[in-house]
């Protein structure tokens, strides 16, 4: 090795070292899932966030934050097809309190966007809040992104979700006809454009492909009410179970794995979770996940 090569190599190593060490540490760090329980849905949302380090850990002053709830269906809040508006509002408030410059809340809906935004209760819950934007998807903002995944080579993703400083994944836990459950990993479909039905033919792999590309700084699963059957849109109050729980984790796979148990299922029953785990996107073994109840 001549001097020039030595300098080059050591220089690169010195530059990369902090990142590499951080990565290694992060990988070894046990996945933490916070579970808060109580009747005050805003309060338990805050508790769960604080238990994973508080919003200040993720949101720095001046950040643009995307909060991505599930509000894909024209169903009222108690039918558990969309994220609880009280939980959404609490998360948005925490972001603002941590100094966020702007909080954007959106979802690419399945039913008519206007009806979903209104009837989910989310648009109303955020009305009048300063520096909060709850606007419908504008198709021109989708960008074709090279994913180089196993199933999806490229796909249209929503620009605002990708360009934000912080991305908070805020699904509701519910039943799904194809994937059995829809949780944090599947919530990413709300920032996907194009013919979304196409990915159903290989759903778990497609979702892993997209999730590998989309950094979720924090995943908060709304389990204040869960939809136990006829998901993902339900419509019958008899299918809704009130659990009064909110789950938070920086590891989406771990959050999903824990949420699965609320339905009496094992993480290994859910192909979407298993595939993401195998791809190294997070931890699904419950005995390796540290669950903190608050």
């Amino acid at each position: 090795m001549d001097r020039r090569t030595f300098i080059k190599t050591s220089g690169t190593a010195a530059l990369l070292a902090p990142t590499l060490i951080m990565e290694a540490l992060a990988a070894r760090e046990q996945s933490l899932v916070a579970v808060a329980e109580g009747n005050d849905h805003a309060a338990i949302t805050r508790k769960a966030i604080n238990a994973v380090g508080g919003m200040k850990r993720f949101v720095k002053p001046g950040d643009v934050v995307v909060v991505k709830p599930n509000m894909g269906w024209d169903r009222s809040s108690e039918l558990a097809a969309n994220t609880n508006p009280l939980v959404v509002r609490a998360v948005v408030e925490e972001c603002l309190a941590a100094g966020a410059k702007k909080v954007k809340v959106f979802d690419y809906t399945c039913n008519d966007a206007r009806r979903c935004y209104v009837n989910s209760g989310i648009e109303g819950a955020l009305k009048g809040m300063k520096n909060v934007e709850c606007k419908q998807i504008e198709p021109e903002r989708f960008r074709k992104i090279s994913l180089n995944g196993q199933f999806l080579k490229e796909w249209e993703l929503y620009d605002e979700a990708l360009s934000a400083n912080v991305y908070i994944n805020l699904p509701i836990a519910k039943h799904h006809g194809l994937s059995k459950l829809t949780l944090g990993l599947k919530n990413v479909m709300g920032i996907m454009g194009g013919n979304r039905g196409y990915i159903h033919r290989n759903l778990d792999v497609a979702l892993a492909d997209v999730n590998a590309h989309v950094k979720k700084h924090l995943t908060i699963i709304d389990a204040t009410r869960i939809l136990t059957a006829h998901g993902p849109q339900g419509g019958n109050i008899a299918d809704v179970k009130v659990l009064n729980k909110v789950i938070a984790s920086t590891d989406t796979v771990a959050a999903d794995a824990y949420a699965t148990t609320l339905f009496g299922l094992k993480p290994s029953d859910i192909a979407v979770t298993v595939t993401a785990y195998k791809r190294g996107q997070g931890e699904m073994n419950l005995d390796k996940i540290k669950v903190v109840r608050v």
Partner: protein
Amino acid sequence: MKLTPARICQLIFLALFLILFVQTEYRGRDEINAAVNAFFRVDPLVLFSYLLAAKSWSWLLLPAVLMVVATLLLGRFFCGWICPLGTILDLLTARIRKTAPIRALKGNTKYWLLLPLLSASLFNLNLSGLLDPIAILLRGLTFLLYPLLGLAAREGWVSLYHTIGERRDALAPAYNLIRDNLLPFRDTIYPLAFLSAAILLGIIALERFETRNWCRNLCPLGTLLGWLARFSIFSRVPATLCGDCGQCRELCPTGFDRDVLLKEECILCMECRQGCPHGRISFRPSAGLKGVGPLLPERRILLGGLAGGLLLAVPARFRNPEKESRLLRPPGVRSEDEFLKRCVRCGECMKVCLKSALYPASYQAGLEGIYTPLVIPRLGYCEYNCTLCGQVCPTGAIPALPVEAKRREVIGKAVFDKNHCLPFARKIDCIVCEEHCPIPEKAIRSREVTVMGLDGLSKVVKEPYLVEEICNGCGICENVCPLETKAGIEVFAVKNRTPIPPQSAGQEEKPFSAYP
């Protein structure tokens, strides 16, 4: 143009028409309180054709009865004071240079239009909406001009994004204001757009020959009102042109091209009174049918009109059965025949449809069904919780139903096409249709079956199936089917449209109330 009382009234009604037109759109509330259907509810042509065709009464028609009474008392004031198409003609006509009137249109042409229309109604074919001036105006606006406005605004907004990117956000509040209050929510391209606009423009082009050409020679509503006006107790004095002046001939937009002013052609615009150099003219009550000519048109026109209607009504019935299988009507329409008797083809339901499910029939419903609304699920679906089409229908052809009832109304039934549907044809998972099915108990369900994959290996696939009893035919399954062009599931028309049982349509949903 002088601002006479009639002019001011015309402009107010034109503005009202346009405001109501823009309001006939989902603007964030489930109810539309005031829609442009108000204009059809006072329309006597709609009244008579409905009564003749449906042979029954609807309270929605009461305002039109009042209009008939008012016309019997005052005369044909609707044309000179209210009709928005007439106002548009008045506004444009000064800019159009006139040649000579078309002789062929004179005489009884207008009766040859009105009478067959009414007579066809009697034989159960209600075509009055095709020539109703308000319907013509509305269709031109709805199917071409309004979508064009929306498209132009949206394209401009999108290209602004491609030019200046995120900086566009600074202008967003202004654009949102326009979008939320003025623009159509989504751009829908309608079939028959050019025909609709061409008819409207054709009527404007007729102004080239004489003022209010359409109104005095063709318009069936005007003809009907004119006939009613013969009985009016209100008339112009003097009834004839004065020998020493004749100025009225120039001023009158309608009937004064003869020596005597025919009551049935006077639209009470009062231009002659305003313009009379001698101040001789007044409009006042005067008894009798003096100088109005025979009460009814000649017998051959009456009989000919009746026969024309019959001829129109019967051969127009022809329908291609294959087309009929996809003849899906808006929710709540249970009988095709009853629907055709009431529909005025105004296009309001198609304008208001949330998910762009409704389109005017061009050939699908035969000649008799032209411009009637059709659900085309591959283009849009019937939103489960939406009741707007029934709310804006002027005649109740689409019934106004509470949302619980509307969800149960059957538009058609979905059928899988196993040659296309992925789990059957390609042995792979999909069931996007089940996911989107809005029926709480799911009219589309799936079961796991072990099949031989195309690679020859055994595998488990979720095969969808339909629970026909609880399918309401909303079409969301066909709409979202991820196959390209042709869907693997399609909605077909059914004769028996008995609503699905209530327990399948979901429990009472209470609106969310945590935030007032």
